[in-house]
């Protein structure tokens, strides 16, 4: 048995960008890339790639990574290939940059249809830029397939069923569905593997398939936003931190306890 897996992955601003380097262009209402800090593949999408590669090992799978956007950095987007994915498809078009969740879902769903046969669509639980956690749900709705979110474990059974452990804050749910299906993956699934040297060399030789918006049958009018961004700004914290010192670190620890008692917090 071998299944076709499509992993949706997004290129995002590195969420580890230090707060001091995090800048917003408030007129354009967008986050400015920090100088010298390249974008990354959304972390949860890497968890989804990891889930796909685990299935490739256990049941056999062909793994296609799909991304929709523009301004792709090829070294960044090739990382899933170097981890072991088979092919990369980029819908690279200014028309599909900065879409809202609805339009993103539309573009991803149309791309998946164009790819043809698929059994499983995997997505990260949410993207670390807009934290919407919505586009995957839209893809499932538009493709008319079952949807399971927040996977920490995915098993494919011989009869074409899948069993998913869905991470909750106090445990997990076990959910069953039949393929084709869409599953979103959470970090509890496990750390994504590091690319091997061989993987990096193989990935280097692979050329991504690049489509435009019209290749997936979409025009600007199909992608008009339903949600409008009115304002984007960096929050200001009004808290002043009282730093507790001492003769040395141990003394500072003692003083901290005393100060907390004085403030009636302990």
């Amino acid at each position, binding site marked *: 048995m071998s299944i076709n897996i499509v992993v949706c992955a997004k290129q995002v601003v590195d969420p580890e960008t230090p707060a001091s380097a995090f800048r917003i262009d408030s007129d354009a209402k967008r986050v400015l890339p920090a100088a010298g800090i390249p974008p990354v593949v959304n972390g949860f999408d890497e968890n989804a790639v990891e889930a796909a590669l685990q299935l490739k090992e256990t049941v056999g799978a062909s793994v296609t990574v799909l991304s929709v956007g523009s301004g792709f950095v090829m070294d960044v987007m090739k990382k899933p290939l170097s981890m072991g994915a088979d092919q990369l498809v980029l819908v690279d078009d200014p028309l599909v940059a900065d879409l809202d*969740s609805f339009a993103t879902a539309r573009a991803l769903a149309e791309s998946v249809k164009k790819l043809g046969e698929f059994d499983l669509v995997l997505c990260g639980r949410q993207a670390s830029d807009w934290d919407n956690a919505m586009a995957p749900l839209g893809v499932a709705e538009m493709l008319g397939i079952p*949807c399971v979110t927040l996977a920490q474990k995915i098993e494919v059974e011989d009869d074409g069923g899948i069993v998913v452990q869905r991470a909750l804050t*106090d*445990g997990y749910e076990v959910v069953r569905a039949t393929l084709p299906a869409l599953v979103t993956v959470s*970090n509890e699934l496990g750390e994504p593997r590091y690319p091997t040297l061989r993987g990096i060399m193989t990935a280097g030789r692979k050329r991504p398939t690049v489509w435009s918006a019209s290749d997936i049958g979409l025009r600007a009018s199909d992608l008009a936003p339903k949600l409008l961004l009115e304002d984007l*700004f960096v929050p200001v914290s009004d808290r002043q931190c009282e*730093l507790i010192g001492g003769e040395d*670190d141990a*003394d500072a620890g003692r003083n901290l306890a005393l100060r907390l008692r004085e403030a009636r917090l302990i």
Partner: protein
Amino acid sequence: MSGILVFGEMNPDGLGGVTGELLALARSLAADTGDEVTVALQSDSVGSEAEEAVALGADIVLKVESEILAEPQIDAHLAAFEQVCRAVDPGVALLGRTPLGRDVGPRLAFRIGAAVAQDCVEVSVNPDTGRILATRPVYGGSAISRVSFSGDGAQVVIVRPKTFEPLDPDASRSGDVRDFPVTLDESAIRARLVDTVTQQAEGVRLEDASIVVSGGRGLGGPEPFQQLQSLSHLLGGALGASRAACDAGWIDHSHQVGLTGKTITPDLYITIGISGASQHMAGCSASKNIVAINRDEDANIFKSATFGVVGDWNRVLPSFIETVRELRDG
């Protein structure tokens, strides 16, 4: 299309906490729009929860009863709520970002062609347009966005739990309680919940604790969490951790505090070796007092902390714990 429709959640003890929060928000929006507030209560059987919802602010309660809705089967609740939504045709639908609402809300919106404002922490009515204006943290909390809805279609608003205070129940409020018959069958459930496994950490629940002690990447390994555990016991609190520490396998994910973990609201939040990445702060920013012990004086955590020690936790923590113990015993 008008009115505010609330997706009411129930738990075995009555209304789920988020339902009261959503009703409070609905009432504040209704004060500006003059809209009626309708809540759909979906379960196998709705009892006193209906009156409870009226007391908390609902004008109309729809009892959406079906055997199939006894469990949190997402597909079944989605199908039921879709039927309610198409019948009520609300201007605004409010849901909580709960394990159920976070999936039902967006999928409903995609089905009815509406947009969604996700994870909102402030929601108001634009007086010029009468349309919703919603505020939500993005980029893991590094930025705040304000969004509105294009056109004049339905507006689906998903609200971050524990953001709005429920109103005090007012038993004298009156409201209409109606049955809303739904047509559901098993085939609606395409992804079926077959089991729920609870892994409750011992002691005080993180979400309920008035004191939380958390450790992060700076601890360097699993062992220091034992010291943190004993400190949290000493203070009658709960033990938390950053996602980095959980992903590294130093401590179970059930302790994870943050955007993708638990949201905590303690009076005192003591962090050790946590840098305060926005992803983490999203889960603890409602703490009344944050204490930071961190080696890096530029760490983001100090921006949100009330008290801080810049130093090596290896040296700070033992004397801190010892003094806490002396203060408690003395």
